[in-house]
């Protein structure tokens, strides 16, 4: 286990070094993503300025929501950049490279690429947190831990969606759609959604676990809820591993020749 952790850390180190080779491009992409997130932020500022509260959410909750989601999403794809590309790898027969190496396929695949855009998310998350004005150590720790758990949930959900490719063939579109649905729903106050939609947001597309639940944890300091979130993250990671490993048995090589550099 320790050996695998060291291996993953080494991959992350290499990814950072690789991203830094193209500094200008890296910076442009990170800044682009930062501005991208900033625009949503501006929308909410303008919205609340004109209309006030929205089902129990004010601009303060939105700051916290954005901080946790962008930190969680940023950590997920900064470290496990291939999480939302699994369907692509399976459909194109590009898993061959990982199968020939003496390392567990799933962690190797997940952590062997870094998405430079996500540095913009990470930095945005930090700035967004400053806007919340919560500088007490408890809030900072709860936010960080919630964001880490949200990152695990993001990776797990992307991994599960992507692994559908083993079963249904080209799942690139559906992974893209489900992943975006999860991000889209998570960025809005949960109070807007009732009934069946709310149930979906806690189960099939678990957007609530990366947005609404962490916000409630930080706001109320509810450690029991944090425990539930940790359990949800553990279940997600286990499910991803099972779905991926089971699906891997169905994998057929595309005989494609790839050079990973």
């Amino acid at each position, binding site marked *: 286990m320790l050996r695998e952790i060291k291996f993953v850390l080494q991959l992350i180190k290499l990814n950072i070094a690789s991203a830094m080779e193209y500094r200008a491009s890296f910076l442009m992409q990170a800044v682009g993503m930062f*501005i991208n997130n900033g625009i949503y932020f501006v929308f909410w500022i303008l919205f609340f300025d004109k209309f006030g509260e929205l089902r129990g959410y004010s601009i303060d909750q939105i700051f916290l929501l954005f901080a946790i989601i962008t930190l969680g999403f940023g950590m997920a794809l900064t470290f496990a950049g291939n999480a939302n590309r699994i369907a692509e790898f399976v459909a194109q027969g590009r898993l061959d490279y990982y199968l020939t190496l003496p390392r567990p396929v799933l962690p190797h695949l997940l952590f062997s690429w870094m998405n430079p855009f996500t540095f913009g998310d990470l930095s945005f998350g930090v700035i967004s947190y400053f806007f919340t004005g919560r500088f007490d150590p408890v809030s900072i720790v709860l936010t960080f831990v919630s964001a880490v758990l949200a990152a695990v949930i993001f990776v797990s959900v992307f991994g599960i969606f992507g692994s559908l490719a083993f079963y249904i063939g080209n799942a690139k579109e559906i992974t893209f759609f489900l992943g*975006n649905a999860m991000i889209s729903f998570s960025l809005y106050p949960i109070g807007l959604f009732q009934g069946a939609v709310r149930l979906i947001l806690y189960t099939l597309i678990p957007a609530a676990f990366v947005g609404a639940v962490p916000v409630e944890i930080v706001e109320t300091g509810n450690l029991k809820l944090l425990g539930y979130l940790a359990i949800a993250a553990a279940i997600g990671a286990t499910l991803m591993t099972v779905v991926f490993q089971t699906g891997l048995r169905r994998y057929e090589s595309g005989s494609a020749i790839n050079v990973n550099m």
Partner: protein
Amino acid sequence: MTTFAADAGTWRAKARKYRAIARANVQNSLAYAWDALTPGIFVTIFIFIFAQIWKVTFASQNTNVINGLTLNMTIWYFVWAELVQLSKIDPVTTIQNEVKDGSLAYTLGRPYNYVLYHFFHGLGGVGIRLVSVLAFGSFVAGTQAGLLASFRLEVMPLVLFVTVLAFVLDYCIMAMIGLLAFFFEDVMAFRFIYSKITFVLGGLLIPVDFLPDTVQSIARVLPFNLVVYAPSKLFVAWDWEQFGFVVIMQFFWIGVMAGLLTLFYRYGVKRVTINGG
């Protein structure tokens, strides 16, 4: 032996050429019709979320009309706004890749204009996306807010005309972003920024009428509102005077952007180095 059409070099011949390019992509998009489901599913999510937000907002404001728009009009506004956003031509990735990998050189020797080629090629894929977005979007808006109460069938050709001009204006801006690849390694950040400016100042996330007065006055001066907000507002609240103003402004900005795009392209092409291969 090479044969030429009798009208070779005329406007008619050029139109035929670009029509053929567009037709080829229409056939291509029809062959992969299922791909058009993706924007349809996206619009379903967006309209559903926006419907919830604005239902709650109208209820909390205890009013039926906000700045001239009813809840029904607001939800249908987003259907047209998403229709523009999800159906428009997006040449950035293709142009960037062609500039970066040098395949741009392949098209330089061909008897068509590179920028126009991508416009008509993209146009071929617009139709099927329009149908998909309109079908899914209308269904969700209909279930959430009922039919559009202010719908006027007789002005729809003019709304479509304004929408086509919006596509042209947006294409000029997007193609310029793609051509930035002559100078920058990756231009996706620029596309991100442009698309997000459109989200707020263009009226995709919130109708310009709902913005604070200062922001609204800035948004109305800039060309971005002519891409999304202008056609969407005319769709839900037709106004002849507004239509005239929008068309004039769209022609003005298309002129400016097309001029800049041409200059940009000519300057960029001079920097192309072909190494054979």
